[in-house]
Structure formats: structure tokens, C-alpha cells
């Protein structure tokens, strides 16, 4: 390919970082420009709600070290936001007014936190969590004896709650639904994590939303939907993200719950690709489009799209997988089936040590586990495989998981 080509990556998160690395690995020798609105080079987000809030700043995980970008001649424009994209003229405009012409462009713009439109939500000491700077701001407010209200009992809210509790804070979690992580996990898992948090002294309030926040400059109370006033020193809101699609919408790309792409990351516009949280992508294993917010998707979809841009067409075709760590419990979820007949459990659902297999006929179509990473690794292969499986063998601890795979 001609060395004069320019590839632009908009979004310097995990996906953007892996993409530029993959372009160089694929032998692309042209110009690479990486644009990100955060002041930081690409990094992985999982530690933001876990180790980085637990007094372990060394757990910050850049995708590559600073030297990598210089050594690989990657032009990083940090603290800059792309404000317009013209697919016909193949230019992107930045918030400093500069225009960049590209031959190919990759959108890895990720997601923005969903904001809670309740009175008082703009008071000081009310935080959302998406970026390293968000994490550091929350970290600065965590200390022994501080009172923290977490709004949202999903992955992020519960990870923040566990981290804050480990720092000695008094933590209350408000969750609108009747169980935790309801969008993502089986009810047995929700219950295992409710017990886990209760045992560690987190006050979990189900069927409870926040109506408003009170305070004079800084938040002093979270007011629940039942009009209970909870005194608090800080609130953290974790009610999901929305895909950052404004640039794509304005450019006329097809957007429908994320930027619509095929299995190679190709958008509806020629030479414009997208990857990561922002995409609603075709997964060939499922023959349908899905939008994922996960570490795996950020890394591997970005690599596939980057390779495709460089002429080594690679489909992104993986069993979706995600995890959470709360206190000493590791949760893993894989498969994300839309439908299943029944669930077969191996292990003790009462003891935070089990795996559940979602079955469709004699096939495993999904799995969720608490504290069983090794079983889960095999379960992920079973999901991708075509081997018929027997409920009794799946449930029987005496039958090794490896034997089930063979």
C-alpha cells in the first residue's frame, strides 16, 4: 500500500489503542493519527471501578507505554474532540478548527455515561464513572467512615460499592429493579451478589430509585423515591452508557442503537469503520447484530477492524464474554443468548461457587459463573462448539469440565 495514506482513529480509549497497534502490526507504514478527548493515552477501563478505587494506583493499565506511540510514529492528538466528519470529502474536523484529510477512518468513540435528570444532580461530590479522571475524583473522596450513596446496582455501581466498602466507607446502593445486575445475569447470580454485599455490610435497597439530591453546593442527602433522606458525603451514579454516535449521525452514517457495522467493522460509508462499545455489529456466530460494552469487544473488534482496514480482512466473530470483580467474588458471563430452555447448575448456588449453563435443547448457549474462572473458560468453548451435552454430566462435579469439552 502507498506510504502516503493516512488513517485516522477517532477515540483514544481501549479500542483506539488496540487499533493503532494492530495497524502497525499489520505492516501499515502510512500516517496514523489518533484523536482522543481525554488527556490520557489509551488505557483499559476495568481497573477504574476496582483496583484504582482500592488504593492500588499501580493497577492503571495503559494499552501501551508512552514510548510505543513515538517509536511507531503515531500522531496522538489528545484532549481534542472531533466535531464533524465529512464522508464524501474524507475529512474530519477537530474542536481547534483544524481539518484532517484521511484515506480511511475508524470510529472508536465508545460511550458516554447516561445522565440522571433528577433535581440536584449537578451538586458537587456527585460523580459518574467512565474515565481515569472520573475514577481519580471518586478515589479522592473515599476514606474510612465516609458515607457513599451509589445509584444503580449494575456492574459499575456494585464494583464501586465494593471498592468503597473495602476503603471503610458506609455504602448504600439504590437499585430501581427488584434484583441486582438484572439486565445481565440470572436471578441466582443476582441473589448471590446481594448476599455477598450484605455480608460485607453494604446496604442494598432494591426497588428503590433516587428522586433528587439535596445539598448546599455539595451533596448532603440523596432522596429516594420513597422520600427517605439518606445523608451522604458523596454519590456515584452508574446507570449505564449511551453510545457516542453524534459524529456518525451528523455524517449520515447508519446508526441504530450504535453505529451499524458488519462483521469487519465496516460502516454504511466507504472507508469508514467503527469498533468497540459504539458499534451495533453483526456477529456471524449469532447471525444478528449486537451492541456490547465490554473489554473483549473493545480489544478484539478493534483489532479485526484495523486489520481489515490494512487489507487483511478479519471478521470479528467471538462468543461475547465479560466479567466483574466484587470483594473476593469473580463473576463471568458468556454467550448472551436471547432465548434458552432451562438452566443447569454445577456447584452450590447458595455458596458463591457455581456455574450455570443456559441450555437450548442439548446445546450450551450461555454460561454464568461465580468464582469459577477455569470452568468458565471451558464453558466458553462449549458455547462456541457444536457438541451435544447432557444435563446430568454438566451438573455432576465428578465429571471434569475438560472431559465435557472432549
Amino acid at each position, binding site marked *: 500500500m502507498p506510504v502516503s495514506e493516512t488513517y485516522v482513529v477517532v477515540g483514544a480509549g481501549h479500542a483506539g489503542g488496540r487499533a493503532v497497534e494492530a495497524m502497525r502490526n499489520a505492516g501499515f507504514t502510512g500516517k496514523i493519527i489518533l484523536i482522543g478527548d481525554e488527556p490520557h493515552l489509551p488505557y483499559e477501563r476495568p481497573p477504574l471501578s476496582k483496583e484504582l478505587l482500592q488504593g492500588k494506583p499501580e493497577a492503571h493499565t495503559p494499552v501501551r507505554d508512552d514510548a510505543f506511540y513515538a517509536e511507531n510514529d503515531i500522531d496522538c492528538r489528545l484532549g481534542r474532540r472531533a466535531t464533524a466528519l465529512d464522508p464524501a470529502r474524507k475529512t474530519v474536523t477537530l474542536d481547534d478548527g483544524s481539518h484532517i484529510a484521511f484515506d480511511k477512518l475508524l470510529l472508536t468513540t465508545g460511550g458516554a455515561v447516561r445522565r440522571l435528570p433528577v433535581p440536584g444532580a449537578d451538586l458537587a461530590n456527585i460523580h459518574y464513572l467512565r474515565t481515569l479522571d472520573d475514577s481519580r475524583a471518586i478515589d479522592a473522596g473515599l476514606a474510612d467512615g465516609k458515607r457513599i450513596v451509589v445509584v444503580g446496582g449494575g456492574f459499575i455501581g456494585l464494583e464501586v460499592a465494593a471498592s468503597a466498602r473495602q476503603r471503610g466507607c458506609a455504602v448504600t446502593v439504590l437499585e430501581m429493579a427488584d434484583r441486582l445486575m438484572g439486565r445481565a445475569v440470572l436471578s441466582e447470580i443476582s441473589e448471590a451478589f446481594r448476599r455477598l454485599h450484605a455480608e460485607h455490610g453494604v446496604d442494598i435497597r432494591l426497588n428503590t430509585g433516587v428522586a433528587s439530591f439535596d445539598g448546599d453546593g455539595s451533596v448532603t442527602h440523596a432522596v429516594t423515591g420513597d422520600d427517605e433522606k439518606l445523608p451522604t458525603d458523596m454519590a456515584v451514579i452508574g446507570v449505564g452508557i449511551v453510545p457516542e454516535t453524534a459524529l456518525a449521525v451528523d455524517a449520515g452514517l447508519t446508526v441504530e442503537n450504535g453505529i451499524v457495522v458488519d462483521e469487519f467493522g465496516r460502516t454504511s460509508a466507504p472507508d469508514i469503520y467503527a469498533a468497540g462499545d459504539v458499534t451495533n455489529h453483526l456477529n456471524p456466530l449469532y447471525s444478528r447484530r449486537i451492541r456490547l460494552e465490554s473489554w473483549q469487544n473493545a480489544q478484539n473488534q478493534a483489532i479485526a477492524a484495523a486489520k481489515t482496514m490494512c487489507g487483511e480482512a478479519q471478521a470479528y466473530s467471538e462468543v461475547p464474554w465479560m466479567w466483574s470483580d466484587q470483594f473476593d467474588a469473580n463473576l463471568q458471563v458468556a454467550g448472551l443468548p436471547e432465548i434458552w430452555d432451562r438452566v443447569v447448575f454445577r456447584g452450590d448456588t447458595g455458596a458463591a461457587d457455581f456455574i450455570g449453563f443456559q441450555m437450548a435443547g442439548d446445546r450450551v448457549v450461555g454460561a454464568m459463573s461465580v468464582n469459577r*474462572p477455569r470452568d468458565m473458560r471451558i464453558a466458553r468453548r462449549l458455547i462456541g462448539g457444536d457438541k451435544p451435552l447432557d444435563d446430568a454430566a454438566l451438573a455432576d462435579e465428578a465429571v471434569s469440565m475438560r472431559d465435557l469439552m472432549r
Partner: protein
Amino acid sequence: MTDATWHSVAAKDDVAPDEPIKVEVGDTEIALYNVDGEIFATSNICTHAFASMVHGFQEGEEIECPLHDGRFNIKTGEALCPPVTEPLQTFEVKVEDGKVLVKA
């Protein structure tokens, strides 16, 4: 390590194929693997993020980290796929009288 010495860390029979175990030499966590009857040793801590390799998935001479699916060659420590880029430290191993000795 210039002052590395041999340490008896386990019985060979403790290390089953595809079931790595963790041992410690001083403050160093070491993972022992059985690859086709031969014992190998690497650092137990992934070079990418803090994870224990013995909780990972061993398949032949590859070990996959339980956290992020990074894979390493057990014999050489070589990093094989993203997100891992730095090799795992490996340790010399010998087996004497059914005991596994590691140079660390």
C-alpha cells in the same frame, strides 16, 4: 538472578497435566506445569495485569491468563497474543527422586 539457587518446591506427582499449581520461593510466586510428563516453571503473575496463571487454562504448552485471555508459551515464556506483550519469566527446573526443584 545471579544468586539463584535450587529449591525443592513440590512432589512431581502434585503437578498433573493441564492442572498447574502455585508454589512460593521467598516472596516469588511460581507456577509449575506438567507438559507431557515434563515439569516447567514460570512466574505465576501475568505480565499484563495482576492475575494468577495457575487459575488460567493450560492447553499443552500454552497457558492462558484467567483474566484477559492473554496466552504464553510455558516453556519459553513468550507472549503469544494481545493483550500480553511482555514474556513471562521462566525458571530452570529439575526433578530428583520425585521432587521438583526450581532455580530461583
